[in-house]
Every structure is written in C-alpha cells, then in structure tokens.
C-alpha cells in the first residue's frame, strides 16, 4: 500500500477552482518532484495536504498511511508524520526557536505515546541537526524566523524537518530566493534525510533544485491537473523546452 494516495482531488480558494482532479500515488522512500508554471496549483496542493483552511476541498480523497487525511486537523497531520517546509516561513516574535521546536517535538511524541524528551537529550538532538544545516546555534534563542534572512528561514525549515523526522515531507518552493551556496546546504540537508521510510514531495518552479535533490519521479502540473509524469529526465526536458509545450499537450 502506498504512503499517500491522492484520488481526483479538487480544491477551491475563494470560490475559484485551483485543483481540478489530481491523482497521485507516493510510496515510502520515494522523492516526487512537482513542477509547473506559476498558478498551476503546485503550492495549493502542498497547502491542501498540510491542512490550510484557506482551501476548500470540493471533491476527491486523500488516503495517508491508511487514514483519511482530509478529515484530520493540521496538528494531527503533523503528529501523524506530515511536514511542510513553507514557501514563506512565518515570523513569530516572542517565541524562541528552541521553545517552539520543543513544543512541536513533544506534541508529536505525546501523540505516539512517548514521554517528553528530557532537556539534555533534546538539546543534544537539536545541536546535532543544526550542524547538519550549518546553522549558527545562536539562532536557537532567537524568535522563530524573526529577522532571519531568506536563506536562514529556508534552512530553519529543513532544520525543523530534521528534528521532527516526518514520514512525508512536503517542500514548497524551498529553493525560491536562495543563492547557490544556500541552495546546496538546503539540498544536502534534505538528501541526508532521505530514507526508505520517508517520502518527499518537492514542489518547485525551476529544475535547478533537482540537480541537487534528484527525484525518483517528476510530475508536471498545469491548470490544476497533472499533465505529464516521468522520471528525473523529465525535469531536464522541461528545462530545455519550457512549460509551453507541456501545456499544449494538455489542451
């Protein structure tokens, strides 16, 4: 059985239909790239999967790990192992990164009937994962994303993912706004987290990220539907010919 099974998913935002019937099946261990032009519905798909209430699902179903995903609250999705790296991570003044991560990790552990991690073990874990992302430890005591540069915010997202160890990670345009050095660090962090138990959905507009995070499958989204699927070579093909030809095929 696949980890994530999306069937005929339709979703609206403010009365306008953005997703017009998505079918997608993802197994543990796989990395799927979702590409497409602006406005094709890539980010909407990521947001719907993570439970953002701005979007209304009008038809279809999503089965995650044998459960009805769409019936779950955003926090329960996270507790069940879904993690979304935000395209625009939110700044939360007054809440330290460390406190936030501890609250998140312990909420997830509680859901799994595990005791809270004690302070020393937690700090050790956090420091180890921070080194992976080449992040300065001073960021731990700063407010979540507050005053972080664009690159720091994206790294912080992957760092959180490394601490929370999800089963399904959704990376929403994690490459946007990153220079090449930051992109390499982020990609290395993501690659270190690839495992046979973990699936990833990498949403991106550009092929560039996929040079560093090599996907198993590539899907092209246009006007709310997957119009083409293939292996990693599809991304290269898109790089050459652009989205224009693909959209033509769909029509």
């Amino acid at each position, binding site marked *: 059985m696949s980890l994530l099974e999306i069937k005929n998913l339709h979703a609206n935002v403010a009365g306008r239909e953005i997703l017009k019937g998505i079918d997608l099946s993802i197994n543990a261990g796989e990395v799927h790239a979702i590409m497409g032009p602006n406005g094709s519905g890539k980010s909407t798909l990521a947001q719907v999967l993570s439970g953002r209430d701005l979007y209304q699902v009008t038809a279809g179903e999503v089965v995650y790990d044998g459960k009805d995903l769409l019936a779950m*609250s*955003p926090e329960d999705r996270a507790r069940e192992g879904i*993690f979304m790296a935000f395209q625009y991570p939110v700044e939360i003044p007054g809440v330290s990164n460390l406190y936030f991560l501890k609250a998140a990790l312990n*909420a997830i552990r509680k859901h799994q009937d595990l005791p809270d991690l004690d302070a020393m073990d937690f700090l050790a874990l956090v420091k180890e994962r921070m080194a992976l992302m080449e992040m300065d430890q001073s960021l731990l005591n700063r407010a979540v994303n507050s005053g972080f540069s664009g690159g720091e915010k994206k790294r912080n997202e992957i760092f959180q993912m490394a601490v929370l160890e999800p089963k399904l990670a959704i990376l929403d345009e994690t490459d946007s706004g990153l220079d090449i050095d930051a992109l390499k660090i982020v990609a290395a962090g993501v690659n270190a987290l690839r495992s046979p138990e973990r699936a990833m959905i990498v949403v991106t507009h550009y092929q560039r990220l996929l040079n560093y995070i090599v996907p198993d499958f590539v899907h092209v989204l246009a006007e709310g539907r997957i119009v083409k699927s293939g292996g990693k070579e599809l991304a290269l093909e898109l790089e050459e010919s652009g989205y224009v030809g693909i959209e033509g095929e769909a029509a």
Partner: protein
Amino acid sequence: MIDRIREEARQRFSDLGFPTTHDEDWRFTSVAPISRTNFEPSGAGSQPAAASQAAPGVRIAKLSEADVEPYLARYASFQNNAFVALNTANFEDGLFIHIAKGAVIEEPIELIIRSSANGHPTVSHPRILIVAEPDSHATIIETYTGNGGAYFTNPVTEIVAGDHAVIDHYKLQTETARAYHVSTTQIQLGRDTNFRSHSLSFGGALVRNDVNAVLAEGCECTLNGLYLTGGEQHIDNHTTIDHAKPHAASHELYKGILEGHSRAVFNGKILVRKDAQKTDAKQTNKNLVLSEDAVIDTKPELQILADDVRCTHGATIGQLDPEAIFYLQSRGIGLADARNLLIFAFARDIVDRIKVVPLRERLERILLEKLHGTRN
C-alpha cells in the same frame, strides 16, 4: 498639618464630585457603579503591610509614626482628581518607606494591600509614601489583592526619588472579579534618576490606574504596562510623563490583551515643557483583541513646547495572526496551545522586563490561569 490637608481634600472632593464621562479624562470610563454604591469603611484590615522585615538601609513605618510632613500629599495633587481628594481626605493610616542615602537594597521590598468585602460593599483608601534618598537603589512591589464580593480600593502612592537614585517599581493588581480599583501613582524624580514602573493589571470589574511622572534633568524613566481583560472587565490606564527639564528620556510600552466583552482604555500623555530641550520620549501602546465584542480605546496625547526634542508615539490594535497559528499547528502544536503560545509571545517583552524572578514566574502563572479561565 495633615488635618488641614485632609480638610482641604474633603472640601475639594465635595466641589469636584465624582467625574462623569463628560470629563475628558474619564470619557471612556464611567465610575457610576462606584458613585452609586454605598460603601462602608473596611477598617484596619485593608491597610498596606510589608511582606517582610526591612533590610538595613530601609525604614518601613506607619505614616502616623513618621515625620512625613515634608512629603505627604505634596506630590499627588487632589485639585483635579476626585479620587486622590477622596483618598487624601479619608486614608486612615498608611506606609512610609524610606531608603537611606546611597543604600543599595538587593531584596525587593514587597507591600501587600489586601481588601475584603465583609458581606457588604466596603471601601479602603490605602496610602503609601516612598522616599528614596539620593544615590539609593531599590525595588518596590505593591501587590493588590482581595476577597469577597464588591469592594472599592482607592490607593494613592507617592514616590520621591532623589538625585541619581535607581528605582524599580512594580504594581501588581489582582483584585477579585467584582472589585473596583482606582489608583494614582505619583512619581517625582530627581536629577539623573533611573526609574522604571511596571503596572500589571489583571483583576477587578472596574479599574482605573493613573501613573504620573515628573522628570528632572537627565532622568531616564520607563513606564511598562500589561493589562489582560476578559468577561465584562473594564481597565483604564492613564499615564502622564512630564518632561519638565532638559536631557531626559522616557520610554513607555503598554500592552493589552482583551477577551470577552471587556473594555480597555489607554491614554498616554507626554508633556514636554519649554525648557525641556533634548527630550527623548517614546510611547507605544499595543493591543491584542481576541474577541469581536472587546473594545479598546487608545489615545496618545502629546503636548510639546520645546523645539529640539525627539518624541514618537504609536498604537496598534491587532488579532492573532492566522498564518502564525497555522504554522504552529503544522508542526504538531494543537490549536488552543498555539493560540496561548502566541498570546504569551505578545506579552513576552513586558514579562521579560520584570527582573524579580518570583514575580515574573507569578505573572506567567496568572497569565496562564487567565487565558484558560476565560476560554473554557
């Protein structure tokens, strides 16, 4: 002497009467529930009391047992404030806190003012006089609390800080849900003093706090405030910073969290007199409104008569950011916890400015209880 002042105050109160919402200073706060109630004096039980023995360098005495004439009622004017007049005419006894010249007092001096309604509405007029001699350092905490039904606490505190004194003053107001509390804190600062006021207001049905500071040359004056209102509560904070002399700085940050049908008022007056060149004054009032039925009235009042000054003010009224709530949820944090985390975060900078650790922890507990109490 004091008898003459009392008589003047009594006369002044009968001239003034209770303020109405036609008075500009009371526009948003009706004291009708107070003026309509027939309160009986609460007796000696509600007198301010020190929580512990005075440390060396500190003298704590009853007003009636100390020579307070040079100070008492010299600073808190009752000419235009009926409640100060009422207090001055009626206070039974009170506390005199004296900090010796050059004394550095590390332990906070805690004063407890406990009111109680004994089956009928009662009124008390706690009076506190704090005199910090030049070069002294001290922290003073006033805690207002009570029990029983409707009662009215009408305190006046006068603080006189000598040159170069460093004073931290905390006023924690945790009256009962049916209490009325109208307070004036009058602060007179000497040259180059560093004074910080923290007004933390949580209890009471109807609350009005006036904090007035008169600054001398080179003063640094900080006024912090936090108010949390729920249910039908009404909390009004009025502050006045009088930049009477040049080269003084004032920093003011008041934050409010409103729930239920509650109402809060902030009025921040900054007066920069003609001589007060090089004044640096900054005032901020931020409000987090968690319910559609809560109301906040916020009003800066700047009167600037000098020309070489820097004065800024700003007020914000906002709700919890739904993006931030979702971000926390998306990491596994439940909705109620996410909201509380963000409400705490809003109050964080005021909480962090509280240097007395037990008080800071107490404040965190109060916040937690209030947040859970009003929501569930």
